């Protein structure tokens, strides 16, 4: 029988969504143009050549190495692109993605990438044309609600602040705005440099939609440990599995031999 990765336990919507993010089996909700993605990333002008840090691998004459023969280079590595990044901030108020799951998505599904995980932001670095592709996938898919997940290279504390007046995630640098038509536009790139023209990244999700798509456990949506005022707590399967890992890790360290 062929092996099927199980990824994550639990039958709640959060458990299901976490499995979707990890497996890469994501629903595509919108189609943001390559040029718009590149504009928001801010590393090169749309249409400009890719700066390179070395000649294409095919021209370099690589050493006789079994690993190099086994691993096909990504398009960006083959071309000699420099390494660039995109970084997302996800609101703790039911944004669809959460930092560790963006990292798991990247590590499992994106070749040649280096995910970094923090509390308010999650960065993926890769060769430039590769990271552009990975970024577009994230922005197009259900991983991203334009109102509660923003590409932010800096100033990311909005993830834990109250939502701004229009239901958008707070942003000190005011990189995005919600239009009258319900669409969110970027006015600045990910590090806050103003854009020549707005970039529309799609419709903001409703409260109901983010609650259904989110991967964060919250007591007021899908609870991790049961409600605090309920007669008994009820642990999610993810918590039970975690207890098991913690206990094994603790006992492993105690090695009297």
């Amino acid at each position, binding site marked *: 029988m062929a092996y099927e990765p199980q990824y994550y336990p639990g039958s709640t919507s959060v458990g299901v969504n976490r499995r979707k993010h990890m497996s890469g089996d994501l629903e595509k909700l919108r189609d943001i143009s390559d040029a718009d993605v590149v504009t928001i990333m801010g590393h090169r002008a749309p249409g400009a050549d890719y700066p390179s840090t070395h000649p294409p691998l095919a021209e370099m004459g690589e050493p006789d190495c079994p690993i190099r023969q086994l691993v096909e280079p990504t398009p960006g590595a083959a071309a000699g692109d420099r390494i660039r990044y995109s970084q997302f901030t996800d609101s*703790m*108020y039911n944004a669809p993605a*959460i*930092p*560790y*799951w963006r990292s798991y998505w990247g590590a499992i599904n994106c070749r040649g990438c280096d995910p*970094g*995980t*923090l*509390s*308010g932001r999650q960065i993926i670095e890769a060769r430039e044309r590769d990271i552009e592709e990975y970024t577009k996938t994230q922005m197009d898919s259900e991983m991203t609600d334009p109102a509660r997940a923003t590409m932010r290279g800096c*100033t990311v*504390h909005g993830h*834990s*602040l*109250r*939502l*701004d*007046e229009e*239901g958008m995630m*707070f942003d*000190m*640098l005011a990189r995005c705005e919600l239009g009258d038509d319900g669409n969110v536009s970027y006015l600045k790139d990910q590090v*806050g440099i103003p854009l020549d023209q707005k970039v529309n990244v799609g419709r903001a999700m409703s409260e109901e939609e983010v609650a259904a798509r989110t*991967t*964060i*456990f*919250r*007591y*007021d949506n899908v609870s*991790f*440990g*049961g409600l*605090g*005022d309920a*007669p*008994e*707590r009820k*642990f999610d399967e*993810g*918590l039970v599995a*975690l*207890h098991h*890992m*913690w*206990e094994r*890790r*603790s*006992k*492993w*360290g*105690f*090695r009297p031999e």
Partner: protein
Amino acid sequence: MGNIHTKKLFVKALNKKFGKDFDLAGKKADYAPFKKLGILQSDRKKEFMAASKALEGKRGITMYNPYLHAGGIPMGQRQIVPYKLSTTEYIVEGDDLHFVNNPAMQQMWDDIRRTVIVGLDMAHEVLEKRLGKEVTPETINNYLEILNHAMPGAAVVQEHMVETHPGLVDDCNVRMFTGDDDLADEIDDMYLININELFPADQAEEIKAAMGKTSWQAIHIPTIVSRTCDGGTTSRWSAMQLSMTFIDAYNMCAGEAAVADLAFAAKHAAVIQMGDMLPARRARGPNEPGGVSFGFLADMVQTQRVKPWDPPQISLNVVAAGTMLYDQIWLGSYMSGGVGFTQYATAAYTNDVLDDFSYYGCDYGVDKYGGWGEAPSTLDVVKDLTTETTLYDMEQYEAFPTLLEDHFGGSQRSGIMAASCGVTCGCLTGNSQMALAGWYLSHMIHKEGWGRMGFFGYDLQDQCGPTNVFSYQGDEGNPLEIRGPNYPNYAMNVGHQGEYAGISSAAHAGRGDAFCCNPLVKVTFANPALLFTWEDIRKGYGMGGAREFRAAGERSLVMPAV
């Protein structure tokens, strides 16, 4: 079940911060919009701007300008809120909690760095057996009088010596303490740290039993000396004045070879530094923060002595001391530089958040397991206490968006939640390794539930941490009390070390112990003449922030008036 224990201690602080009528539980700013008032909503920032403006002409170069922040967007796009020092009524601005602006915080560290404990017994033996001198309570009193003349920086033997101005070094003092009640009775009160008077009776007996009938000197050299030099100076300054004082007090020849025996016995043979010397790559001598073990710091804090009935309060004061010393001063300045580390540390000692979380866990545990130190030391108990406490903590952040906004960084939240679990497990089991096990489990529950924790390195330490809890192998083991900031897995990041000190103390507070690691350190910091408020750390920080605290190291006596 759990909610019967909730006190929501942080609500009062949040009302003070955001305003009495503010909707603390509102998720959207619709209820109280972000006014984006910028820097001008802070009196302290305005004061800084005015001060900088006044200095510009004199300095001839630009200085503080908050409009340079973030490419022209100043702080204050959200509310700039003040901080309430936990369990106190002090409310100060965040800036007041940077150690540069807070003289009480400076004095706390100064009090540690300028302290060394030196034994008297071996010196007395050499005096009696090698030099034929008689040592009596009278000679000891005479010696202590001379020492309190010499230690601040005065001459005792040679003629035509320079000396220090007493007004600059008035914080310097030396007192002795002993486990021998008969000897203590004979020592002049002004030169004695009286264990029987300062400690509850059971604690006094425990301390005296631990130290036997030995005698020690609690030496605090002048703050201004250790600030001008470094922590390594303390034992050297002390040693020189000690040996000169012995020569004077016991009428000795300054050149006799036997005096070398005395000098070694008096200066070096029984010396306890407050901080161990660090490896060369850290480039720090003894008595610097990176060498102060968690157990020593826990013993410096004196809450255990004055509030023995309140184990969480004892632990929380140690956390406050530790986060300031290890995060703000050690990692934040010695090891890194800049101003960012203060934000991590303040979360642990302001706004009654950690207090609420810790008392919740402790109340739950006391109800379930019967009392302080009475829960079995098992992983099942740790799992129960920690899971309940962490889930409660997470729910408070979820239910009170203003609380989440106050602890806007994941490292703050992770440290606070895990500390509440460490304190809870320590107080309930009386076992510091169980407390540490709870600390790590809490981090993992937080990360799993919210899919986020602190930052790269912060998370690494805690996700692999359970493996070192019960390990006793070489560089990865040790009881928590004798680990310190330079323990291999702890040496790199903020938001941990102060909490480790706090949860070390929790275990002993739960057991009702008189001390955590070293009884001599505990007694030394009971010295009433120390300037910092060692009995109530948070109060001291509040006094410093409110500009009510007068620190040592005054120099205006010898400078022109401003």
